[in-house]
């Protein structure tokens, strides 16, 4: 019933005329409805990303030709901070549906989608590519139809990676949501009812109580989703684990146990899902017949792929041409802004990473070496990390303005908020994975504290640290867009930085600058990834791996 009512009100709301000055009700009693709106947005975007990522990954993994184009594209798209897409997506959507709320709504969903889809698609692709050869051979030899192969081999094989990436994606979705529910585009102030706009409005009004309520609601929603959705799914996905021996300890979930025990559900499944699957599989089964039309089909497929390739190339060329034209209108001062900003942001981000490492390494190692403590600290760090950084920005800003200190410090604090958790829990994981015999060796040789750190702890956590840094660095570039430029109670705070350039261009609707800055930021992210992180990653996975094989 509640679900039905919710759907109905969502539908009614979407078809309502566009309101540029939505009043966000700061009363806590409005929060459940706002939470529902936000969750619905994320859910729609998530299912969209799921479908697209499975199709994208499937096509890229199954066609060598498509693979050559699709994977580098994915790699690049993955490293463009999601907020760079904001103005483009929003303007096109609002232009498509100028009269209804649907346009803005679709825009925000599309934006969340762009924040979620890439890593999922990559996960699908790499799982499909890593299916053991002999399994594929079994599937071919026994002539499994494409449908049976998908259901019985490919989907199960990609399940675990896809689920973990889904969790990460949804967390990224919250990040995007916080920003895209309320933003200024040129002279239009667009607002969508939701948790993100609630928090922003509250902090603009300086209503501390409302901010606290909003945060509580958000953490509650995140924890609820974790417990009601992700835990059961992870516990259920255990059976897709590709292991030869059964793990002694496996994650459980009371919710899943409840669902499994539910007689009603299993009866529903046995009369609906099972027969449908049977019928579908039998429908697609080729039986003993020799495929006859194969030749004809292949011809057709060849033609379609040619046409698609031609269309795609045409589209890309057109877009590149347009972009080139747009870039020529950049003034010299704009260019200077962009490049100065890029340098400033780069330094700021590296400084943030260093600061984060300075406190998280000792703390993380301290926690990680004590199993009892890490059992408590690990989930807490996870919750802390799951709160999207933009949600906290207004509060930090509020505090800093009260204490004093400009946006220079504030932006670094903001970046820290968005990045440190990844490093922290990777360090905890690394420290707790140090084998006890190696620790005992240090004991027996009476290694001093410094020696112990140099010879054992730092090398042992190195791979984990790098993993943390890679995630943190990506997050930091993304966060820099909102951390360097802030509108607060009708005032604008900003400092030199690429993020500020992007935000300002978004506000002013200055597309050439936005495009130029986006290209520069993507290029920097890709370069930094290639030149620094990927090399360190290789080093970590070869020399510092705690394995002797």
């Amino acid at each position: 019933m509640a679900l039905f009512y919710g759907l109905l009100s969502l539908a009614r709301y979407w078809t309502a005329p566009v309101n540029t000055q939505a009043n966000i009700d700061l009363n806590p009693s409005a929060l459940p409805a706002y939470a529902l709106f936000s969750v619905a947005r994320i859910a729609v975007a998530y299912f969209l990303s799921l479908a697209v990522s499975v199709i994208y990954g499937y096509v890229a993994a199954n066609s060598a030709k498509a693979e050559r184009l699709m994977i580098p594209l994915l790699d690049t798209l993955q490293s463009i901070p999601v907020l760079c897409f904001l103005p483009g997506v929003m303007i096109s959507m609002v232009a498509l549906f100028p009269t209804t709320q649907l346009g803005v709504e679709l825009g925000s969903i599309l934006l969340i989608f762009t924040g979620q889809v890439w890593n999922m698609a990559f996960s699908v692709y790499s799982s499909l590519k890593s299916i053991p050869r002999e399994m594929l051979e079994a599937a071919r030899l026994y002539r499994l139809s494409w449908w049976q192969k998908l259901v019985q081999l490919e989907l199960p094989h990609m399940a675990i990676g896809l689920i973990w990436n889904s969790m990460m994606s949804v967390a990224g979705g919250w990040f995007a949501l916080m920003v895209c529910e309320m933003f200024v585009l040129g002279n239009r102030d667009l607002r969508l009812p939701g948790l993100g706009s609630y928090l922003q409005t509250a902090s603009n009004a300086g209503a501390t109580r409302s901010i606290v309520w909003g945060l509580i609601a958000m953490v509650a929603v995140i924890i609820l989703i974790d417990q009601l959705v992700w835990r059961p799914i992870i516990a259920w996905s255990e059976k897709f684990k590709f292991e030869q021996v059964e793990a002694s300890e496996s994650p459980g979930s009371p919710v899943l146990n409840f669902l499994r025990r539910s007689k009603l559900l299993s009866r529903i499944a046995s009369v609906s899902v099972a027969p449908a699957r049977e019928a579908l599989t039998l429908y697609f089964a080729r039986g003993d017949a020799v495929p006859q039309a194969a030749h004809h089909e292949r011809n057709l497929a060849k033609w379609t792929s040619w046409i698609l390739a031609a269309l795609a190339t045409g589209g890309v060329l057109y877009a590149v041409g347009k972009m080139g034209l747009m870039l020529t209108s950049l003034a010299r001062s704009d260019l200077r802004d962009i490049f100065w900003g890029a340098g400033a942001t780069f330094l700021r981000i590296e400084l943030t990473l260093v600061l984060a490492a300075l406190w998280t390494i000792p703390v993380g190692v301290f926690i990680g070496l004590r199993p009892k403590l890490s059992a408590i600290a690990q989930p807490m760090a996870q919750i802390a990390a799951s709160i999207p950084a933009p949600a906290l920005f207004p509060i930090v800003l509020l505090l800093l303005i009260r204490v004093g200190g400009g946006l220079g410090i504030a932006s670094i604090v903001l970046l820290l908020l968005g990045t440190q958790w990844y490093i922290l829990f990777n360090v905890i994981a690394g420290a707790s994975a140090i084998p006890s015999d190696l620790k005992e060796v240090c004991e027996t040789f009476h290694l001093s504290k410094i020696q112990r750190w140099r010879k054992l702890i730092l090398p042992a956590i190195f791979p984990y640290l790098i993993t943390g840094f890679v995630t943190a660095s990506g997050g930091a570039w993304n966060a820099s867009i909102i951390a360097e430029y802030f509108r607060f109670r009708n005032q604008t705070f900003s400092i030199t930085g690429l993020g500020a350039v992007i935000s300002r261009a978004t506000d002013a609707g200055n597309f050439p600058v936005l495009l130029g800055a986006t290209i520069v930021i993507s290029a920097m992210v890709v370069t930094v990834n290639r030149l620094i992180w990927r090399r360190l990653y290789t080093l970590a996975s070869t020399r510092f791996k705690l394995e002797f094989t």
Partner: protein
Amino acid sequence: MNRTRADELQTILGQGGWDRAVAILQRLDPTVAADTFMSMPYEDQQVLFRRLPIELAAKLAPIFPYYHTFVLLHSLSKDQMIAVVEKMNPIERSMFLDELPEGAWQQITDELSEHQPAASLAGGVSISVQDRAAAPMQPIIEARWIEKAFQRPDGGQIQVIAPTNLSVEPGVIVALLGPSGSGKSTLLRMLSGLTAPSAGEVLWHGKPLSESTPNAAIVFQSFALFPWLTVLENVEVPLLARGVKHAERHRRALRTLHSVGLKGFETAYPKELSGGMRQRVGFARALAVEPEVLFMDEPFSALDVLTAENLRGELMELWLGKKIPTKSIFLVTHNIEEAVLLADRIIVLGRDPAKVRADFRVPFPQPRERNSAEFLLYVDYIYKLMTQPELAAGPPAAADREVKKSYRMLPHARPGSIAGLVELLNDRGGKEDLYRIAEELLMELDDILPIVEAATLLSFVKSEHGDIELTSSGKAFAEADISTRKVQFREAALAHVTLLQQMNSALQSKSDHSMPVELFRDTLDEHFSDDDVQRQIETALNWGRYGDIFAYDSENDRLLMHQPNLADH
């Protein structure tokens, strides 16, 4: 001494001049002829032996080692074999028979007496040519000149499997034996239709694969079960693919599971089962579709010895008891005893590129006893066959091979293992049967062969007809202390290993005495596949480091010249 004559013969055979070859052999002194004959590739020996006139065959046969004679005789049709034996010089014949192990003696005397009437009726001489191909059955699979080559990125080609003809007849278990990396699995995949050959074609019942749907199943070494499906669901997978309806599918899967002894495990997941049980599921899945040919790719190698033995026994029970409708089993293995235990016909594959070295029947009945004399005879025979250095077979393509020879494949063996083998031989008085050593060390031929090859390459040992013997330098090496050993190893390696010579001279001539390994990798790339290059570099680094020829900086992937004055003092 006979090398040139053997080469000449080889060339003639390469051109298909069988009759000319026979004529040459006839002209030679019998001992020389036998020697020349023996030095040829086994695969050619068999064909040639069948073409020899009875008189010549009878003259040469007693000169060969007894095991060789025994197997060659059995590559003939029964009548022809008897004719040859009867034509032998009586003294030589009794000497040959006396030499045979008991079981083999029993068998051959049985065969002789069994056919006595027929043979005497026919006068023991006139044997029609048709008898040779005694009632050939229509083969299920026929491979015609299939080969496999991979394109290198630089445009060159790497031949993995040389053009090969092969057929699989109904009613037999065929075992394909060969050292690891010899392309056995690739051959299996080409026969089953999983991979297409680069050239040639595979026929099933006389029709090319593109026009037929072969009813085949494979049992994989890694089981290749779907871990997320229960045992029952796993077995149902191929049935579902054929569109078998639910009730029927269920019934057939249960029946198959029952027959492999998995009753009661239907709802278990593969990861809950032991390796042996998992492979039973693998068998059940393969047998569920009632395949005409059951392919098995090293099905027992991932299992422990006892489990493997047990499963082999059960498989034979199903096969011999005709409890499965399967018409033929094609087994790929590197385990010689397994092949002799199970197979009716054994095909031995050579390496680089893969080609058939020998193809013979194992004539004695099932069930076979592992310690029976004839069993051991065959095992011994195959050992000798596989350890005999491969002679270049087929038409010689001189220029091409010359390049290859300078880059002989380095056997993948560690210096420590080589030293171990040499020491063991020294303890045994310097000479031992390879088969015995392998048995004693509980090593499979596949593991010990590279070590022997390496020791031979370094001329620490020499091997002949399955025996290995310590050379004088090998003896010195065995008795030396560690630092002297390193010096000896260095000398031997630099004298015999081209790659190490090149590395050494490159390092000496460079002013900074350092060299990127990538360079050598690139050079090797032109001759070998990626995996082989990887293995060879690894071996070369191991040897070079052991012999103090150079140091290796793994971080920068560079070779550094070893500085003796730094290391020694």
